[in-house]
């Protein structure tokens, strides 16, 4: 399956931190288009670093990341930024919205740097705003909530839904999520995940979801244990 329509592949990824003491070596990963992947690893196993590498924000010390058969190492930094804007959505663990924008503006930020995603989200500002509202509603955030002007007044759970909508608007090929449910309680966590994965299915968006909480694994197509070990640098 993953060889037929590859979404994501890594090859012999290694990352050395600048302090020189630590290094990270990762087993090769692969995911097909539309596939949802649960990456599981304990704290400190380099999950966030891996996501940084997959997002093309961090450059690996060696090895390569290929998304949609495009190699990051062959791209310039500016081209990686463009690629990320077009094809990747990212959900942070927490505190990831700009409090001075409205919830809708925060969602629209997701396609601010990509003409491709703006087009997929409707093209005109009115249509994009409508799509942002639809996404928020689908993710369980009603109009009475997002019409409030200040994003900073939303609860953590509500903010996380806005962040998810921002990552999903314009239908990216790959959604990267860094423990986005760690601040939610168990029942709202499962409800949120369910809605999130439903939206991904609509766009055919593949998911790489990182968490230390194995209880979430059942929502995903496949689970990969992050078996990285510190190596000698």
């Amino acid at each position: 399956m993953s060889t037929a329509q590859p979404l994501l592949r890594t090859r012999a990824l290694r990352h050395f931190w600048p302090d020189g003491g630590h290094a990270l070596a990762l087993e090769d990963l692969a995911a097909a288009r539309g596939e949802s992947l649960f990456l599981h690893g304990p704290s400190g196993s380099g999950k966030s670093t891996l996501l940084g590498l997959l997002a093309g924000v961090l450059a690996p010390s060696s090895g390569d990341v290929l998304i949609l058969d495009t190699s990051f190492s062959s791209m310039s930094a500016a081209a990686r930024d463009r690629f990320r804007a077009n094809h990747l959505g990212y959900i942070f663990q927490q505190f990831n919205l700009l409090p001075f924008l409205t919830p809708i503006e925060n969602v629209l930020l997701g396609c601010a740097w990509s003409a491709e995603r703006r087009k997929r989200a409707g093209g005109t500002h009115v249509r994009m705003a409508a799509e942002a509202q639809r996404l928020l509603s689908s993710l369980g955030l009603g109009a009475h909530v997002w019409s409030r002007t200040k994003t900073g007044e939303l609860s953590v759970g509500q903010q996380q839904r806005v962040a998810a909508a921002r990552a999903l608007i314009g239908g990216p090929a790959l959604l990267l999520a860094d423990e986005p449910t760690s601040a939610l309680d168990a029942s709202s966590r499962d409800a949120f995940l369910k809605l999130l994965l439903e939206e991904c299915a609509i766009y055919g968006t593949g998911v790489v979801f990182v968490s230390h909480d194995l209880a979430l694994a059942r929502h995903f197509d496949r689970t990969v244990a992050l078996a990285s070990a510190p190596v000698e640098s």
Partner: protein
Amino acid sequence: MRLLSLTLKSMRQRKAGVALTVFTVALSVFLLLGVERVRTDARLGFASTVSGTDLLVGARSGPVTLLLYSIFHVGEATNNITWKSYQDIRAMPEVAWTVPLSLGDSHRGFRVTGTNSDFFVHYHYGRGNALAFASGQPFSDLYDAVIGSEVASQLRYKVGDRIVLSHGLGGANLATHADKPFRVSGVLAPTGTPVDASIAVSLEAIEAIHVDWHSGIRLPGMEASAEQARHMDLTPKAITATLVGLHSRLSAFAVQSAINDYPEEPLLAVLPGVALGELWHLVGTAESALRVVSAMVLLVGMSGMLTALLGMLGERRREMAVLRAVGASTRTVFALLVMESTLLTVAGMIAGVVLLDATTAVAHNYLLATAGLVIDQNPAPGEWLLLVVVLALGSLAGCIPGWIAYRRSLADGLQVRL
């Protein structure tokens, strides 16, 4: 979303910090331009102590010496001009007007100038301003005196007060002309020139108080009362210097050399502007000192601005990480920060200029009256250059946090540790 609107919205979130930064920049610009204006206006004011006068004529000495004793009332004349020479200069066809100046007496440390009522018409200063009266009028009686604003304020004189002139320029123990007291007929408005610290009387009055004097002492047995003096011949025998106005400026050099070659007496005619320039050159150290102050103000102001801008960056790390994650390039992040510092600088500059203009408008009369400083509300010529430098430094200051953010976003990845 446009970068500008993103920046503006982000700044609205940090109102206090933004206001503080703008205030810092405004204060720097205010100080910088203020010092620059004082410097330029001090020089301009000095250079236009006498304006509209084409030639200054006195006994032969040096141009600066002549200027010092006749206009600035510093030092004493070595020689006088005879009344005949003065009449000859007056009679020259190119000459439009003359204002005689007769110096040598004083009143409680302020110098007395003997002149005629043309002085109030032709003596101009600054950008062609004539003398104006704060109260009273020019002298009409023989024993009338017009006092400068500083004389009036320091000695608390007003129109109608009686004053007694002293013989000579020294301080204490001067012989006085107590027998011929003067009445204050007018008080001049402040000018910021040496006129403020002088007393003007008519040439005839100078003659009258000296009718019974010879070679600096009062002749015993020859006393003439104030009333008797009125009926004597009061035509002056000599004056100290004269201001000369010409029909055409073009003839200034011709008249100047004609006077310098005057056969009956060694005379010196100078162009006041040239002599003032020479004199300013001598006292120019003060200007250099102000320049140094300007540079220090610039340095401190810009450091303050940079500190404020850098302080704000810390608050924005997460914002930058979020923008990076949604596809903003490092260049965009850099542009955001430079745009912000440029906006803050421009806002600060506008606020600073407005503050300066308001202050000069309010303090104009106060400065003129107390410091004799004419601060113009027009921008000094060097101001534009300074503003460009401030703007460039402000934008450059944004490059530093921009560069730090760039480095950080590479090192942080999408993880922001707080």
